[in-house]
């Protein structure tokens, strides 16, 4: 018993007590997941089928068509033939070094995760911008999501949903969603008060203000958030591969366990290539939608 030496040693729970706490929590969660796991899984079914369908679509499409479509999208978004050429070359190299299928899996999961992060994150960000109370409530949650080691929240997700794509997607979203929430909030809060006041003075309703003034003016900041989200999702694919998410992360994981340096490097580079393409295309797109800012050169 720790009765006299608490000055030198920190008071501690008994080992048995600690074990009991852990046991109770673990059992409770296990019971919960046994009872509700299937229901929750069923809830995510549509997402899973969409993910599978999208992955199959990418894999079933001839490689040259995929490259053409991606390069075309890149051109539409950025109006830069250099970027499109970069897309063609890097995709071709990815295929040439035998990573085509993994790259397509990764791309599908990244796109789905980003989409989900935007669908969930932007409204949460708007909510945060609306009320200071919401902001003080959500900010610490975001801090936890960003700093908690990914492995830690992989555990309950895997316990609940097993190993597979869905837990992977959830883990990636948890990891990648904070930037889009934070920057949506920030972007809306930074909107020029004068402009907002003018809109109010002309009788704009809260919805008209949000859609007509706040969101459009916050767009550069929100786009920066989305960009960050994409980057974080990409960096998460390796960790997600530990719970059975197919894609470029798998070979990387294999290389770590078997010490295949070249295999690891190639797949790592493929991830980097995807990241750079996503980054440049989304940034170029954001810049082009803000053409009114580009010409703000005199007062």
């Amino acid at each position, binding site marked *: 018993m720790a009765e006299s030496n608490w000055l030198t040693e920190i008071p501690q729970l008994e080992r048995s007590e600690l074990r009991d706490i852990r046991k109770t929590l673990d059992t409770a969660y296990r019971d919960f997941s046994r009872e509700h796991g299937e229901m929750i899984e069923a809830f995510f079914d549509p997402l899973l089928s969409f993910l599978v369908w999208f992955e199959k679509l990418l894999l079933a499409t001839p490689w040259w068509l995929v490259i053409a479509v991606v390069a075309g999208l890149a051109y539409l978004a950025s109006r830069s033939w250099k970027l499109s050429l970069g897309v063609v070359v890097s995709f071709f190299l990815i295929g040439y070094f035998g990573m085509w299928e993994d790259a397509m899996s990764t791309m599908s999961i990244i796109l789905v995760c980003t989409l989900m992060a935007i669908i969930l994150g932007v409204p949460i960000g708007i909510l945060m911008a609306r009320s200071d109370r919401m902001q003080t409530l959500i900010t610490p949650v975001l801090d936890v999501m960003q700093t908690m080691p990914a492995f830690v929240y992989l555990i309950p997700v895997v316990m609940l949903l097993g190993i597979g794509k869905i837990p992977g997607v959830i883990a990636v979203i948890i990891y990648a969603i904070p930037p889009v929430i934070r920057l949506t909030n920030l972007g809306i809060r930074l909107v*020029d008060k*004068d*402009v907002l*006041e*003018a*809109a*109010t*003075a*002309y*009788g*704009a*309703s809260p919805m*008209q203000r949000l859609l*007509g*003034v706040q969101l*459009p*003016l916050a*767009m550069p900041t929100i786009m920066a958030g989305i960009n960050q989200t994409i980057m974080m999702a990409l960096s998460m694919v390796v960790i997600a591969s530990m719970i059975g998410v197919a894609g470029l992360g798998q070979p990387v994981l294999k290389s770590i366990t078997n010490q295949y340096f070249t295999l690891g490097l190639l797949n790592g580079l493929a991830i980097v290539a995807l990241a750079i393409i996503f980054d440049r295309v989304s940034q170029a797109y954001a810049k082009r939608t*803000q*053409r*009114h*800012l580009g*010409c*703000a*050169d*005199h*007062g």
Partner: protein
Amino acid sequence: MAEALIQVENLYKLFGSNPKKHMSLVHEGKSKDEILAATDHTLGLKNINLSINAGEIFVIMGLSGSGKSTLIRHFNRLIDPTEGVIKVEGTDVMQLGKKELEEFRRHKMSMVFQRFGLLPHKTVLENVAYGLRIQGVAKSEALQRARQWLETVGLAGYEEQFPAQLSGGQQQRVGLARALCTDAEILLMDEAFSALDPLIRSEMQDQLVQLQEKLHKTIIFITHDLDEALRLGDRIAILKDGEVVQQGEPEEILLHPATDYVEAFVRDVNRARALTVETVMKDPAYRITADTISGALQQMKGFDRDYGYIVTDEGYQGTVKAAKLEQAYQADKDADLTDALYEQIEPVEPQAVLETVIPNTLDADYPLPVVDEQGQLAGCLTRGTLAEVLGSEHKPEAGNPKEDKDTKASA
């Protein structure tokens, strides 16, 4: 007298976390500083009473911190008062619900802002159409009406530009067009021209005056510039530390400042530009009604002056000087008065700004006749009056036309 369009009664605004609680201090007559020290609340507006008539330009003027921008935001309730009533066309704005308030802002009032408040992501044309779009007017119609207003303010051809591509003056024209485009009866202008450089500012003032002649809006104009206030205002209210220290017509404020504070303001005003001939001229005298030279000389001797104004039933005819008449009299003792004997001098108009008549007044060695639109002699403008009104040692009483009348009547 008709009911005023906008009526503000006993309006108070206390800024802080719990203004209602501390209103008693305000009513006790504690000063702004005392209240701030005791409660950490800032007194924004204190017992404001205004009535603004339809079709006038009502200027609220004060230095920064006087509460003028706070006051104008009360009219469309961008800021809610702590106490008081604001009535527009008889409806109490304070009683409006959320939806009603939106409708009120859409249709009754529009606003022009000091820093323009244009939507940077929309084109100039879309900005002008913004109020209509908010009202729910179809896009094509809104844009078409916006195009007309853009033309009216002289910005045709800039439709597809973004606000950031325009100069400050042009941006404010867009702001003005946006405000006019909604057809709201009341126009709130919050230091609308203050951010512009002087030349552009006076250009915009001219434009506003021209537009107002056509449109007859009710304009509430906020400014810190007394010259601007005098130039635009039909009536002016001067605000200091959240209180109205004087309200009245420009001449009244210029010639009879109510407090030292107002007088300090007025001292720096360019009176020559602010006052019209009408407000300072002397009542007409020295009328000559005779048709012969001898008769005229006779009358001139009667009022002991060496000049006179020839007046007939048709009104003012011309000005004559004794010396010239004497010469003509020597040549022909029975001659009638003819145009040839009149002095080469243009009479001045009552509405003319003093500045424009200074040279003629100084050149002439007799007072200039003031002739109104009907051709009648309305008064005369002497060098002495000008010197008195424009001089730095000006005493407010000296230029008072009423008192002049009194002294003359008794004389």
